[in-house]
């Protein structure tokens, strides 16, 4: 075990996989000698050379388009989109191409590209360095969407992504990139996709979150405990396909649920989660499902902390399910 933050864990996974599998190629803006603006690809260039760690021209549609070509050809490209906010020039390549290649070719052309991109607010980045566009991609048939919340998961999930054959959007919570530290096994291990993690068991209310909202929910759960409210905290880890069983079983036990994400509320991921729970566990619910989310406004700069869900708002939503 070594103590790592999320960036180091991602970096470690990339090192392991590039060492193990010579078809793995990293590409993106500043990922080479510089090692990425967040340093997630640090050291890869020196270890594996410029052929496999490629500083591309500054164009996201080209990065993803080229990655698709590499994957069709049999490589395992891991493109980095510097900020999730910059992913939109590549939206067509991701949604219409990458996600559809296997299907539209009748299974002839799998396209196992793992796109890494830091997402989320709370870093004083304003609209263009703070967004959480996961719902747009969860809505895209053919993609998998994975968001780790801690270093151990980041490494194990990324390694799992790199060893399956579907395209994945791997979104990294940059607000806790360095703040989230923990023990990470040095060896090679995988955390399977589609399996949630019950971070804390509880009996009164289930709180579901992912990425940077997991520590927020944990803090809320701690505060709730002090009030005598027992909260079960679920870290979803994979948003598509998500672990419906763990979520529904928990809600059947607690009878209440709150979903938390920093993306806007309307048609956000929480809407899907809530619907899925209603479809399967309506008769177990003691109260409507609470949604704690960002607002339906562009991501602000000066007032970003008013925008972001926090422990108090989460706690408020939890209380509301108990008071209903």
């Amino acid at each position, binding site marked *: 075990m070594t103590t790592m933050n999320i960036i180091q864990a991602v970096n470690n996974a990339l090192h392991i996989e590039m060492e193990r599998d010579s078809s793995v*190629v990293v590409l993106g803006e500043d990922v080479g000698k510089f090692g990425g603006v967040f340093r997630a690809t640090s050291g890869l260039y020196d270890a594996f050379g410029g*052929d*496999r760690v*490629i500083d*591309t*021209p500054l*164009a996201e*549609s*080209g990065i*993803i*388009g*080229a*990655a*698709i*070509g*590499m*994957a*069709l*050809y*049999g*490589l395992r*490209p891991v493109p980095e989109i510097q900020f999730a906010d910059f992913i939109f*020039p590549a939206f*067509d*390549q991701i949604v*219409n*191409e990458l996600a559809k*290649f*296997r*299907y*539209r*070719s*009748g*299974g*002839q*052309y*799998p396209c196992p590209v793992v796109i890494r991109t830091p997402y989320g607010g709370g870093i004083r980045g304003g609209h263009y360095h703070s967004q959480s566009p996961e719902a747009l991609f969860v809505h895209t*048939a*053919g993609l*998998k969407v994975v968001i780790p919340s801690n270093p151990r998961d980041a490494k194990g999930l990324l390694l799992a992504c790199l060893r*399956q*054959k*579907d395209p994945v959007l791997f979104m990294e919570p940059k607000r806790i990139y360095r703040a989230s530290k923990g023990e990470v096994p040095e060896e090679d291990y995988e955390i399977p996709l*589609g399996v949630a993690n019950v971070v804390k068991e509880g009996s009164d209310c289930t709180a579901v979150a992912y990425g940077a909202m997991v520590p927020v929910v944990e803090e809320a759960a701690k505060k709730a405990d002090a009030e005598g409210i027992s909260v079960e905290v679920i870290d979803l880890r994979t948003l*598509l*396909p998500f672990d*419906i069983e763990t979520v529904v079983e928990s809600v059947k036990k607690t009878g209440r649920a709150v979903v938390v994400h920093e993306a806007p509320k309307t048609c956000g991921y929480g809407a899907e989660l809530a619907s899925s729970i209603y479809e399967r566990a309506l008769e177990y619910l003691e109260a409507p499902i609470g949604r704690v989310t960002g607002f339906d406004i562009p991501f602000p700069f000066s007032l970003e902390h008013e925008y972001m869900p926090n422990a108090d708002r989460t706690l408020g939503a939890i209380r509301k399910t108990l008071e209903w």
Partner: protein
Amino acid sequence: MVQILDTIGACKYTHGGRLHRALGDSEMAAKKAAKKAKDDLRVVLDNDGKVLKGATVPEISDDELLKIFDTLLMVRIVDDRMMRLQRQGQLGFYMKSLGEEASHLSVFPLRKSDWVLPSYREQGAWFWAGYTIDDFINQLFGNAEDPIKGRQMPVHHSANWLNYVSISSPVGTQIPQAVGVAMGMKIKGTDEVAMTFFGEGTSSTGEFHVAMTFAGVSKAPVVFVCRNNGWAISVPQAKQNAAESFAAKAVGYGMPGVRVDGNDVLAVIQVAREAVERARNGEGPTLIEAVTYRREGHSSSDDPSVYRAASEPEEWAEKDPIKRLRGYLKERGIYSEQLEAEISERHNAAITRAYERAQSLGAPDISTLFEDVYEEPPWHLEEQRNYLMEQERTRNPHHHN
């Protein structure tokens, strides 16, 4: 008036005679540019198939020439038959290549291990590579034997056994992908080559420019074939490009740009060969502009009479690629009317056979709807499949599949 000016603009490189009229300064400049571009056009055969003075004929064996002729004829016959099926209501949609067939033979110098990322109007490339008429027609019908399982509308073929990549409708997406394939070839240290096709209208997309930059910088072994057929649906080429030519754009990306008479299959092959060899030798990408003309509509849904003069396609019929190759074969003493009749008969018979089978087959099984979204269907797709199958059982209780 606007329509007339557009038409002139559209033909500025290739209809020099129509420019002899009072023109403004900018039009004079355009005329000058057009003349230079015209001078740069690589041509081997004249309109009758005679070798032009000073032209070098690429080395192609008699057998290969006859196979090329066979392929071009096949495209023309298939196009004609499929469009008739479309007009009869047998087929939902079709796209012809009338007049552009020679440009498809840009793939002539490719090896089996090379890759092609096509657009939607290169039937000849597919047939040349060995895509069968059965696969072709089954795809158009989206039936149970469609190689892509009825997943896309007609003309969106895919054949991984030929390294021909699945076609997409949004134009230009294949161009950066082709660069990616070529970058992969370079990373793996092979001497393989990727070739991609697109129309001149597509050169206006961001994907084109992004891909050209990626290719130029990476020196990837990729050949870009821009089929300049004059029209992007109803919009003439002059509205897609203010540069001297489409090939002229190459200089901005650090690669050679070559203009070739896209109706002259010998010139097409000559230029493609040079570009493929450059790529294979590690000298990087090339942009080829194959100057040709779309003599019919963009697709079965189009009506060119609304936006261009009927005389335009008629003029281009003079430069017909099959007519020119036929003339050349005659010169070379390897053509006979009987041979052409036999080829036509063979293709027609094969098409009839393939069509009859294709239209007798049903759609792919409903259960396949959920396959290939992912390698394995996740729970939510299983759930949706079960729902649909249950609906089907209720609707049709005797269906036991």
